[in-house]
């Protein structure tokens, strides 16, 4: 029997949508079973959400006070203990999965396939390299297949399932060399999540300042969009890091992506290749962003946003 274990990402109360995207990828493997591992301090609500994803057989819940925060050095030995008997191990390619999965793979002596974007067979996958400017088709060697899932390539698996929840006690020794201190989020509470939003309004260096970014927020709020940014805008301190879109930021796939004052560097485009419709507003008619935009408008972003707000009134 071959089966896959998907590692759940959550914040203690809510299952992150990236988990259900990883399940969509897991379904394409065509294996006998899909299980989800939930490691938490008190994981009841998270495991129930995981059990509701359709197509999932068993949710394995490991409760331990050490799992209050997702610290890879502590999670890895527990997942290794759970991985016995699985042919595949998947996690979303978010900062959570990217940090955790290689630590497990190395212990198991297996290589890792990062950012799976297409499943050709249970051992053959497509993944992007060079910021998405080339796609390689790769084959995993014999043994357990370990991979992170490029979440923008997969839809959120639907609910409607009723998996069994199985509590598991593990007797693994956890290291004491790593302490969680704090997590500070960049604000943006109340606004849609950048990685899940249907519409994203994004600003670049052209926005000019932290104060000016209020026009980006203003438009986003008006149309119920999440707010994104280029690296240059984050580096300049206009907006916190968790808004960065691109090769080294978030890879997103909204239905509508609106870029204001973003030139369209390949590293930025790597993050928006899967967007449904791209709108670009830039005062430079030769900006490379226009090469990928479905609708381009040459003009001053401040004036355009003012007119947009009026038109969408």
């Amino acid at each position, binding site marked *: 029997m071959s089966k896959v274990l998907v590692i759940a990402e959550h914040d203690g109360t809510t299952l992150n949508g990236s988990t259900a995207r990883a399940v969509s990828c897991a379904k394409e493997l065509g294996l006998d079973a899909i299980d989800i591992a939930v490691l938490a301090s008190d994981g009841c609500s998270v495991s129930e959400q995981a059990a509701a994803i359709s197509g999932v057989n068993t949710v394995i819940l490991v409760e331990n006070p050490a799992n209050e925060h997702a610290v890879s050095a502590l999670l890895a030995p527990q997942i290794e203990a759970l991985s016995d008997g699985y042919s595949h191990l998947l996690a979303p390619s978010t900062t959570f999965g990217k940090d955790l999965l290689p630590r497990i793979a190395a212990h198991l002596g297996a290589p890792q396939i990062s950012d799976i974007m297409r499943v050709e067979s249970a051992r053959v996958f497509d993944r992007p390299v060079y910021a998405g*400017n080339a796609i390689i088709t790769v084959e995993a060697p014999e043994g357990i297949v370990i991979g992170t899932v490029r979440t923008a390539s997969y839809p959120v698996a639907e609910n409607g399932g009723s998996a069994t929840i199985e509590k598991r006690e593990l007797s693994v020794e956890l290291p004491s060399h790593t302490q969680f201190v704090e997590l500070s989020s960049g604000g943006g509470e109340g606004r849609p999540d950048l990685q899940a939003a249907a519409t994203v309004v994004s600003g670049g260096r052209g926005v000019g300042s932290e104060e000016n970014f209020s026009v980006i927020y203003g438009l986003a709020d008006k149309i119920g969009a999440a707010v994104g940014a280029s690296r240059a805008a984050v580096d300049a301190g206009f907006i916190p890091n*968790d808004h960065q879109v691109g090769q*080294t930021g978030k890879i997103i796939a909204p239905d509508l992506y609106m870029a204001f004052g973003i030139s369209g560097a390949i590293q930025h485009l790597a993050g928006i290749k899967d967007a449904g419709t791209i709108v670009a507003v830039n005062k430079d008619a030769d900006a490379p962003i226009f090469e990928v935009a479905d*609708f381009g408008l040459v003009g001053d972003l401040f004036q355009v946003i003012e007119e947009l707000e009026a038109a969408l009134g």
Partner: protein
Amino acid sequence: MKILVGVKRVVDYNVRIQVKPDGSGIATNGVKMSMNPFDEIAIEEALRIKEAGHAAEVIAVTMGPKVAQEQLRTALAMGADRAIHVETDDDIQPLTAARIFKALCDKESPKIVLLGKQAIDDDNSQTAQMLAAISHWPQATFASSITLDGDKATVIREVDAGLETLSVDLPAIISADLRLNEPRYVKLPDIMKAKRKTIDTFTLDELAVEPAPAIKILKTSPPAKRQAGIKVESVDELVAALKEKGLVK
């Protein structure tokens, strides 16, 4: 205290890469090669730690063919004290790279290993975590700030939810994100001085490193191209187009 820093030779980040028509890889003939930008940040951070009096020696490490020594020379010109070249013509995947770093850690006993958070060619983002795993050392990936205090490091990490702070015991593996620092420019006299610094060379055999099971690359293809769009002349035209697609109300 020693700091070991990884340096990878990659296609320069400004190059628009081309996939070879036969699907065997990307064209690298005559293409500009540079140090992976994240590794440059890692070197810079190691130098700053040394300049602040927390480290005695910064050792730059690369693995790859002979020409990869160019990137080691850049690291030496930036200020690294010496360098190690693990010479091989094989494609070194992350788990094997981690095993090589582990062998070098056993030799050099560094307190910190600083690597880039990913290489911009294969975009794997694995080596630091794998090295931490097989060394049983702490890992602090995607670092945007490192503060040392005795036998501990406090690291601020860039994560999807914002900024996470971890405290790790040394020795530890840290991977550098973009906002950790801005690397210095190398000056001509430094390049001259770097020529006199030592580069030690090893083979995998000499380090007794067993290559890990490898992922096989079956083919390389260009990505799906987005359909070229249109330029609209006015906001009204834009709004009409978006309304027609049902994207705005």
